[in-house]
């Protein structure tokens, strides 16, 4: 990798991005910070409360429970979607008409608005009118995602796999396409096994795009709101109430702005921490 030149005027090129993002990020974030340390009884009267809300949220069992559910959800979908996405990208035709067909069809779920995804899976999985629910029950499974927590979880994960695996496929496919044919020819001459080709040619090339894929899937699954809200509404009971669902319940359902803001910040810091760990681990090899 050739060394970058030091050039402080590069800030001029970055400036428009910084201004636009800062405007959208810093002002709202300060508003949230502001709420998180105050108590209000309406009429725009606020009282300084210090760290009270943070202590309350961090010690509440409700928060622990939804955080645990969130971590479970994110871990499960990452463990399914990343290997599955890479496997599909490896099995796809590399170029030509069929490659285009695959790409176009696979990208479909990515471009459906999230509430439509939720609504679509709702009517797809309902035990009385949905294809999936009806079929599973006809096969003898007792399946009803509006009543059974396990079914609700399975449906939620199936929906997310349906929705997002293609993102991993697209990125992995793009990474694979960047490998020159000469590499494969050389491997064939050397008599390399399929595993060796994957391990020493394909995987290194996939590293950069997989970093993007894992980080994107991590962030988005941690922020997921609309789809589970439409599909299960957090139920049955609280069994699928992920962090953001819980947050919106507190903020807009109960109008507890202080605790909601404190929870938002803790939530954001958790995502930040994990992302930073992923980011450092996965880019460690590149930065020298």
């Amino acid at each position, binding site marked *: 990798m*050739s060394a*970058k*030149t*030091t*050039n*402080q*005027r590069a800030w001029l*090129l*970055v400036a428009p*991005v*910084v201004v636009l*993002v800062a405007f959208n*990020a810093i*002002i*709202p*974030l300060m*508003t*949230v910070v502001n709420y998180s340390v105050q108590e209000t009884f309406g009429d725009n009267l606020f009282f300084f409360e210090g760290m009270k809300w943070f202590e309350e949220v961090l010690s509440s069992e409700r928060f622990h429970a939804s955080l645990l559910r969130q971590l479970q959800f994110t871990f499960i979908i990452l463990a399914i979607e990343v290997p599955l996405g890479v*496997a*599909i990208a490896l099995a*796809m035709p590399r170029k030509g008409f069929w*490659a*285009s067909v*695959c790409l*176009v*069809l*696979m*990208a*479909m779920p990515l*471009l*459906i*608005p999230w509430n*439509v995804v939720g*609504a*679509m899976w709702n*009517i*797809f999985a309902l035990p009385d*009118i*949905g*294809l999936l629910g*009806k079929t599973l029950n006809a096969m003898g499974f007792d399946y009803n995602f509006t009543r059974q927590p396990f079914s609700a979880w399975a449906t939620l994960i199936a929906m997310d796999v349906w929705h997002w*695996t*293609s993102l991993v496929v697209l990125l992995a*496919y*793009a990474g694979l*396409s*960047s490998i*020159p044919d000469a590499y494969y020819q050389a491997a064939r001459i050397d008599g390399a096994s*399929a595993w060796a080709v994957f391990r020493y040619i394909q995987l290194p090339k996939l590293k*950069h795009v997989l970093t993007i894929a894992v980080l994107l899937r991590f*962030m988005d699954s941690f*922020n997921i709101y*609309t789809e589970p809200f439409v599909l299960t509404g957090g139920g049955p009971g609280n069994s699928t109430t992920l962090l*953001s669902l819980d947050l919106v319940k507190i*903020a807009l359902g109960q109008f507890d*702005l202080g605790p909601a803001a404190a929870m*938002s910040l803790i939530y954001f810091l958790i*995502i930040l921490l994990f*992302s*930073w760990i992923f980011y450092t681990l996965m880019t460690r090899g590149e930065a020298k």
Partner: protein
Amino acid sequence: MSTRRTASFKWLVPFVYIVFLMLPIYWLLNMSFKTTNEILGTFSLFPQEFTLENYRAIFTDPTWYNGYINSLIYVCINTLISVTVALPAAYAFSRYRFLGDKHLFFWLLTNRMAPAAVFALPFFQLYSAMNLFDTHIAVALAHCLFNIPLAVWILEGFMSGVPKELDETAYIDGYPFWKFFTKIFLPTIAAGIGVAAFFCFMFSWVELLLAKTLTSVDAKPIAAVMTRTASSSGYELGLLAAAGTLTMVPGAIVIFFVRNYIAKGFALGRV
């Protein structure tokens, strides 16, 4: 021998996956051609009384079709802004070292992580204070929060794949920066621009929470029109299915246009 056998069955993997992807879409499509009574009353793999009534209702009611127009307007504005400002920034990140570059890059990424649920209320207050509430530009600007970092990130990856010698040769040949950037560099990474625009379009099109929070009538997105209909006039499943089906159309068109960019791939190391 064994390699040939695996090669001949390899197509099964993407095939099964695509079938899995198409099943819920097929079910939605199936329902969109049924009346709500038929959906609730009978279970059938194909519409028994085929009807276009749901689609007719959408195309004749301005609150419905304006929803689509509104969504398309702010999504296009957002994609344009995001990619335009991200291009020079991504170039700076991929070519130069400057004070605080790594921190700045990570800070940009952190905005991709901010839960929209956290920002909904402050965004409402911010854009109301600027008199931009219920305008297309408000939603377009708000979506910049997550789309600009993403565009910078994707473009930086593409640009780093272009050898630095290309820049150096051009500068030696006497090209000024902007001329080199627009005449030589941008065409070189056209595929990357296509991919970045695709992702911006996609994330802006599918986002609902912020778009819904920042609009009421004039710029109301289609996804929000759908939630309103679901709650106010009972559960019109057929209409909802038809509206859902139509939300897939712009996405399908965009994919069709960028398919070659994605298919050509990130083959830029060979330029």
